[in-house]
């Protein structure tokens, strides 16, 4: 077998930057000139994954558009913690309207720019999973099918966090939320409900759909860059852990995102014109238990006694992701999928 080339000094390509790398090989976040789209003083909780994900994505979009960009924001944590009237943390042109209409507002901005002949200014729509996957979904689907020139970014923290951690269509099975309590024979959110917004976006056969996490900065930046090089409707789904809603330690935000990817819970991939074009492989595969344990929303799976059958069902979902997207590094090692048995 051919040895993989060692490309970078010491920490490979995984750290944010490195004193020995050429500046162009470092991530944008290592650059003092980054936009800092969402600046200090915002009121997000300690260790907020969404604040981090939004800065990563929007700074990259700002670079890709040379700073000529307008962002439309759905209601949600991101809007509430960044813009309590009359203060704002945004250092970019930014507009807020309603919970469910951010894709439609984005469409409107794009249409206005087209009417004015301003092709140089680009549009980014953004919201949380509630505003995207549930409430704003009709507007989003319309934006996709019309092919409006908008990059829509969903920051997925898997529930309505701003209003007090209620279940959304992106809440995973077995997770405890305010509306899916850990009681009864099947505690937490039920299996078999919810949806995958990235796969639905792919079904629209729009030019670009991708998923990313806050644990892989370079991957996230590259995907925003790729998305901004294309015209038409594009969708980016970013996995952003929520210490408050998930009951995880504030210091563990990035670690939990990393575990979601390394266990296969959250597949990281890129799709062009409705087809998966590349996947981010698992580097060191781990059991889903490693991901579940540090989160109190899954505490009922371990106490008072371990719910091994529920953990096994979650593992089966992760295994299905691994099979479906080919997430393991060496394809020969993936157990053959018998197919049709279900």
């Amino acid at each position: 077998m051919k040895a993989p080339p060692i490309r970078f000094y010491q920490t490979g390509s995984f750290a944010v930057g490195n004193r020995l790398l050429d500046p162009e090989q470092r991530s944008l976040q290592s650059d003092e000139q980054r936009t800092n789209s969402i600046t200090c003083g915002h009121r997000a909780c300690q260790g907020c994954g969404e604040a981090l994900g939004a800065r990563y994505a929007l700074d990259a979009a700002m670079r890709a558009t040379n700073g000529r960009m307008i962002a439309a924001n759905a209601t949600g944590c991101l809007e509430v913690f960044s813009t309590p009237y009359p203060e704002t943390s945004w250092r970019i042109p930014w507009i807020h309207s309603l919970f469910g209409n951010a894709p439609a507002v984005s469409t409107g901005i794009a249409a206005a720019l087209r009417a004015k002949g301003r092709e140089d200014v680009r549009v980014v729509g953004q919201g949380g999973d509630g505003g995207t996957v549930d409430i704003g979904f009709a507007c989003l689907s319309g934006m996709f099918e019309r092919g409006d020139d908008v990059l829509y970014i969903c920051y997925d923290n898997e529930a309505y966090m701003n209003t007090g951690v209620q279940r959304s269509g992106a809440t995973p099975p077995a997770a405890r939320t305010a509306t899916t309590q850990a009681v009864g024979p099947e505690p937490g959110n039920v299996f078999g409900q919810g949806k995958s917004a990235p796969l639905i976006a792919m079904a629209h056969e729009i030019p670009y759909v991708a998923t990313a996490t806050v644990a892989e900065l370079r991957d996230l930046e590259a995907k925003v860059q790729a998305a901004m090089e294309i015209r038409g409707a594009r969708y980016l789904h970013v996995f952003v852990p929520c210490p408050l809603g998930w009951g995880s330690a504030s210091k563990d935000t990035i670690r939990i995102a990393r575990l979601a990817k390394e266990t296969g819970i959250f597949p990281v991939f890129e799709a062009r014109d409705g087809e998966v074009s590349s996947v981010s492989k698992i580097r060191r595969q781990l059991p889903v238990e490693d991901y579940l344990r540090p989160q109190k929303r899954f505490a009922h799976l371990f106490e008072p006694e371990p719910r091994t059958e529920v953990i096994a069902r979650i593992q089966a979902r992760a295994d299905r992701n691994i099979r479906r997207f080919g997430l393991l590094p060496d394809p020969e090692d993936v157990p053959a999928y018998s197919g049709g048995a279900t």
Partner: protein
Amino acid sequence: MEKPFAITLDVGSSLANKTGSWRDERPLYVHRLPPCNHACPAGENIQQWLYHAESGEYESAWRELVKDNPLPAVMGRVCYHPCETSCNRAQLDESVGIHGVERFLGDEAIRRGWRLTVDREPTGKRVLVVGAGPSGLSAAYQLARRGHAVTIREAGPMAGGMMRFGIPRYRLPRDVLDAEVQRILDLGVTLELNAKVTNILEAMSDGFDAAFLAVGAHIGKRAYIPAGEAAHILDAVTMLRSMEGEERPLLGRRVVVYGGGNTAMDAARTAKRLGAEEAIVVYRRTRDRMPAHDFEVEEALEEGVMMKWLSTIKQAEEGRLVLEKMELDATGFPQPTGETEELEADSVVLALGQEADLSLLHGVPGLEIEDGVVKVDETMMTGHPGIFAGGDMVPAERTVTVGVGHGKQAARNIDTWLRGVTFEHAPQPELASFEMLNVWYYADAPKTVAPHLDAVRRQSSFDEVTLGLDAGNALFEARRCLSCGNCFGCDNCYGVCPDNAVMKVDRDDGYAFDLDYCKGCGICVEECPCGAIEMIPETI
């Protein structure tokens, strides 16, 4: 001011909202003690010189290295590298090949003629160093750097001590040793050869303000073996020493080496190179109980040295030996079985350890000798004020690196003693353990194995066995360092803060926290690859 409809307040930035007030813990950049530095008997700041080497700044790397050890080319070859044994990277893939990089830096310095420097004005004090082995040379260098006038008196005909008269050439080429010794002498250190000190007080009365003794342990221990008149028995120290003279020892076709330490391996491998058909090591215990380092045993076996475990020599006659078989008792101690066997042998080399010749210390008041070695306090001073000692003649592990460490330690204390102050050791920071690292950020990179000369060639020549790294793989190897406990400028903290509360600054390690906005989430601590940040409670 006129405001639009329904607007009552002026727009402002969230910068007015000092979220730092939420915090009950704050992050702090720290320097922890890397395990390599902790394990180094010479006290080298390994992580720091690797840091320089990583960017290809070999001269600054070498300068950092020689602050603690003036013999890097020697050390990279002969040290048993406890640094690598303790390296955190071993838990990830393989330890960093520190000795290979050290040797590369040492060789590079010789090739490029880098010179040592004296950092202080002359003090007018004179220090006598007795013995030009690793410990004496190290002390002489450290004292000269501090502005003292140093004279080394060496009993032998050449400098180097056991590095010359104990370690075979195939492990340490003599031109390398000569170059590193000369560099120390170039600082103005006076070296007197064939100048055995027989009475230390008398020697010091020659105008010396202090003395450092490092006479080593050069007398091979003998064991009583009933022997016929014609039996050829010699000790390993004498044998290895005579390798440096005009006449090489005549050992015959079959050589038996008695003992299980590193010297026994050196003796057996040297015998093989001198033309012995058979070199057999006789040792009374088993391989796992041998004091010799495993790689030395391995290299000896590769070269065709044979081993006879659980055996003692009962009798020696001309051309043959009587061995008695041993067995280990419950406590692991070998006990005779009474069962004997014969072994053909033209000569027997005893490698049973060495003793120090301490005759120069007769009549020194206050000085104590116990178990054949000199007692010293934690400043390396003997019971007699102004006389310090180190190396093989004091109680410690007997290696070149320990000797160099003793020399440095003693020199620092001699310096402060001469100036009438006490040397204060900086408090040791916390050890950087593997658990403090976030190793996910490090790319997988296996160790560059220094190529070995092919075994056949090794048996017949005294060429160096282990070849060095070249600039390319030395750089690669240096970059495998995880920089445990010390910032290496990866920008992770700067990138992962959700509150933009990490700033780049032109001081310290290049980063600082903006405590007006840091909420104390601790992500920077968790995501720091090398464990160079910690959380401390706020004191309110």
